[in-house]
């Protein structure tokens, strides 16, 4: 059976593909996230895991912009900051409960997305990258200089989340809140990516001119991606404020935007499971490497270059599901037929 030898790596790959495309994968991830606190529930572990979840949410949000639509946003931390500051100001200065700030944050994120995306999305990709970078700096410097945002010392005393009278502000409560919110966010982003709009996004990423020629209003569709990313970032900002109970401008530097981008690129642009893994990797790795903490950003930088040169699709690439799976199916069928012929001589 020489054919068997030849096909066994292909079979292994097919198996791996099946695992990758398994629809229950997300549920397994969710189950793991729900069960981990039963293994270790120290405050430290919970805070690391909560941060990792927030990072997942940010990465999934940026993935809408960069991964699906191919627009490089280097100032994504700006939306994160807007969410954190809007909810923080409303909660501390005006005494709103944190949940009540959610609609306001969404509106603010949409407005910010339109303000920055509106004029700039007609520009070429590299202009957009720099403009978003400038926007990130504008937001950070503004937060640093206004009185309502507390200037350099920021805002402190942000209350925890209360839901129907249940206090969720403890580490465990917050962790589970984040698990639920982030799971919904991941699911939402993945479904968006598979929707009609998501297909338009990927079309634009692959060939904007062709997309335009096929009757897609590229400007509106790109703006939609931008606004989507902004909302995800803003909501993550609320959770961030709830977790730390204090926010200040240094939390929203370019470093953050770059790390989120790193998670998206490393995991695989456009691939939801990849990006989730990438985000967990990027946020947990520094905790594991505390001793060599000084090296980590240097290593991250080198890693970005290496990934781009040798594995541009990331560690867990997105697949063009519709086309690929059908072709795989056909291949598998042909393979089965061939095997059947060989078995029946």
């Amino acid at each position: 059976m020489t054919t068997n030898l030849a096909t066994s790596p292909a079979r292994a790959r097919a198996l791996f593909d099946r695992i990758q495309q398994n629809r229950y994968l997300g549920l397994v991830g969710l189950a793991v996230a729900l069960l981990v606190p039963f293994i270790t529930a120290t405050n430290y572990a919970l805070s690391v895991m909560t941060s990792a979840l927030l990072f997942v949410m940010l990465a999934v949000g940026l993935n809408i912009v960069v991964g699906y639509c191919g627009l490089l946003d280097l100032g994504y931390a700006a939306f994160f900051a807007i969410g954190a500051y809007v909810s923080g100001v409303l909660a501390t200065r005006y005494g709103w409960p944190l949940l009540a700030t959610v609609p306001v944050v969404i509106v603010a994120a949409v407005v910010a997305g339109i303000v920055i995306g509106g004029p700039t999305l007609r520009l070429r990709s590299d202009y957009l990258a720099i403009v978003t970078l400038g926007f990130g700096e504008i937001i950070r410097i503004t937060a640093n200089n206004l009185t309502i945002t507390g200037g350099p010392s920021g805002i402190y005393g942000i209350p925890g989340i209360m839901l129907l009278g249940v206090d969720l502000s403890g580490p465990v409560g917050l962790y589970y809140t984040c698990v639920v919110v982030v799971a919904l966010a991941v699911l939402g982003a993945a479904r968006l990516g598979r929707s009609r709009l998501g297909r338009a996004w990927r079309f634009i990423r692959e060939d904007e001119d062709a997309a335009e020629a096929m009757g897609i209003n590229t400007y509106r569709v790109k703006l939609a991606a931008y606004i989507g990313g902004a909302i995800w970032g803003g909501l993550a900002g609320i959770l961030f404020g709830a977790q730390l109970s204090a926010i200040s401008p240094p939390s929203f530097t370019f470093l953050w935007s770059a790390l989120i981008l790193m998670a998206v690129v490393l995991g695989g642009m456009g691939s939801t499971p990849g990006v989730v893994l990438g985000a967990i990797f990027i946020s947990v790795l520094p905790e594991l490497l505390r001793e060599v903490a000084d090296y980590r950003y240097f290593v991250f930088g080198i890693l970005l270059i290496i990934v781009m040169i040798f594995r541009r699709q990331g560690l867990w690439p997105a697949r063009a599901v519709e086309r690929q799976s059908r072709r795989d199916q056909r291949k598998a069928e042909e393979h089965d037929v061939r095997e059947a012929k060989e078995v029946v001589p």
Partner: protein
Amino acid sequence: MTQLLWNGLFVGSFYALVALGYTMVYGIIRLLNFAHGDLYMLGAFVGFGVLSVAGGLATGLGFVALLIVLIIAMLVTGTAGLLLERVAYRPLRGAPRLSVLITAVGASFALEYGMRLLAGPNPEVYPVRLAGDSVNLLGARITIQQASLILIAILLMAGLQWLVMGTETGRAMRAISQDPTAALYMGINVDAVIARTFFIGSALAGAAGVMAGGYYGKIDFLMGFIIGLKAFTAAVIGGIGNIKGAMLGGLALGLLESIGTAWIGGQWRDVFAFTFLIIFLTLRPTGILGERVTERV
């Protein structure tokens, strides 16, 4: 008012020097070298290193020492730019724009935090400080050193102009920026010319770094980030890809900032510059001297 204008022109000449590298690289291979600002930082640190080693000798010689340091720093940053192109950008030639941009972000990170590993996270104080006697010129106070720095900047720019317009290499550069494939068919060694472009652009950024170190007196490993953004803004204002435009844009941005700072306060200076960039790009994306660039399909 004259003081404001003078300060603006002075800072603007730094911006212009850094913007030149941006615009040259962009003009020739349409790559936004994101790590360019960090080469400026590298230049400042190389200058710092050389001056520290030379020690007392340098402080005795003052300005002449700074000139020698300037040349050493230019050579080192130029080589670093060459290396960067070879390792990070050349393997990706022809790749999608997004990939190259991400590589460039990675390169910027590696440079910044690599320098942090070498020199430590704290700002360093430059051993040579350019604070000399000042002259009164039309009501503005100008130090001799400031005037000399501007002079150096002008000389460097004039040299570049001559290089691009008057030499073989410059002609090859212009040919590649028109059409890389055709240039290749005409027997131009495209890779070598691109490498040279990187060397020159990076060396100019390095020179600006040393000058800024000598002028401000303080350097740190993140100093390239903001200046990179500003230089890009300057390049865009002048029309990216256009060398005269970069000089003009740098000076314009310096003046705008200087006046804007006096008008709305120093802490809003960067906000002012970036808002201006966004507005400018929206209204006139090709810049003052830029031609309309059509995207190749």
